[in-house]
């Protein structure tokens, strides 16, 4: 076996890796979209006036947050068929990522809502605004910029966790690299390419989140630091 970097091999596998990258981006995007919605449900569970629902909600969130995503993936992928629900690896992966990161996003939402000063609510009550109107025009516009950095960070976080999907057979970037590496008995180039692709995508994404944070703050008339 030849040692050192082989450019011909790199060029040969690059198209395959590029296609797999699209799958990774798709997985991250869909997973994130599900997580955003799931987060809202967990937030609702947290804010309902029923103590018992609050408690159940908190325990579920706590459980999902303190157990590994990897085993959750296995659990969903292997256990659901035992109950007669057979889903494809893609669907299982998306559901699990959505649930896992939904718990994190609900915390982001909660922090953002609590970040809006209580006097804002009191002022709206004094002005006789309805609850819906208060949320829509007063609270959410102020909560949103607080939530932006956290939401952005989890988008990047989900993107970096998508390689886990390869363990249940979702054909994303890491899966492609392992397949190519196993076929050719060369892991140096495939895994290095995966690393480079992740870097070139996630660093600009992180920078974009930081810029977004600044822009939203500016639009709100707040200049941070």
């Amino acid at each position, binding site marked *: 076996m030849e*040692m*050192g970097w082989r450019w011909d091999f790199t060029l040969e596998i690059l198209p395959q890796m590029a296609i797999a990258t699209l799958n990774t981006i798709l997985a991250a995007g869909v997973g994130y979209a599900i997580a955003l919605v799931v987060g809202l449900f967990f937030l609702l569970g947290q804010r309902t006036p029923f103590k018992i629902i609050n408690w159940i909600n908190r325990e579920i969130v*706590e*459980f999902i*947050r*303190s*157990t*590994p*995503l*990897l*085993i*959750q993936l*296995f*659990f969903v992928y*292997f*256990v659901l068929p*035992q109950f007669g629900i057979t889903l494809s690896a893609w669907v299982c992966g998306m559901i699990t990522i959505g649930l896992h990161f939904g718990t994190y996003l609900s915390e982001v939402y909660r922090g953002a809502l609590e970040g809006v000063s209580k006097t804002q609510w009191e002022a709206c009550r004094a002005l006789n605004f309805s609850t819906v109107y208060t949320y829509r025009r007063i609270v959410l516009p102020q909560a949103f910029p607080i939530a932006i950095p956290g939401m952005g960070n989890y988008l990047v976080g989900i993107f*970096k*966790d*998508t*390689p*886990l999907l390869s*363990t249940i057979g979702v054909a994303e970037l*890491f899966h492609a690299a*392992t397949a190519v*590496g196993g076929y050719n008995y060369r*892991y*140096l180039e495939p*895994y*290095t390419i*995966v*690393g480079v692709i*992740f*870097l070139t995508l*996630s*660093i600009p994404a*992180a920078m974009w989140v930081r810029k977004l944070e600044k822009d939203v703050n500016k639009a709100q008339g707040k200049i941070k630091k």
Partner: protein
Amino acid sequence: MTYFEFLNEHGVTLLLGTVTTIKVLVCSMILYVIISMIFGLMRLSKNLAVQGLATVYIEFFRGTSLLVQLFWAYYVLPFFGISLEAFTAGVVALGLNFGAYGAEIVRAGILAVPKGQWEAAHALNFTPAKRIKRIIIPQIFPIILPPAANLTVELLKATALVALVTVVDLTFEAKQINSITWLSAQCFGTALLIYYIIARFALVPFLRWLEVLAARKIGKERI
């Protein structure tokens, strides 16, 4: 097969895996704390080369996926003549990855100590070493421990990934038992439960205790 029979047959195997998981956790925890301290300080260095090196390290490990780093350490390093045992590769990858996140926490913690503290220590003619040791570090801990606690729980969860580079930990055993018995609900459910118990009833209380200790040390009765 009832759940009790399942535990009777496979409980010991799962517990042995749990011991490995805890070993991985403790080793990588020590490694990541040391790395975060070093690189957190380097990030604040006035020397541009030192600062640049720390920035590159942090951006690199935060920018790529842990799983990729893990596989790189285990499958690619042998190409360069460095063959690590699976356990070592796992601990090193975890330590380096979490060290990058930890370095940012340490950096933010140092920056959060009010400037007046530095100036007062300076005015009192403390030596630089004494200034760091007696004035700055005791004030950093209460600031960095809460985010570091979150990171450490993430580390516990991340240790599951070492199973994929053949470290025989709890995840590995669960997968193994699953492939023999196909009792997926039992083995993955039990594994989830064990991780949850470690996090909720051992790791988190330990970290809270550290937080209380650090707060008490500087005379703040917090939390």
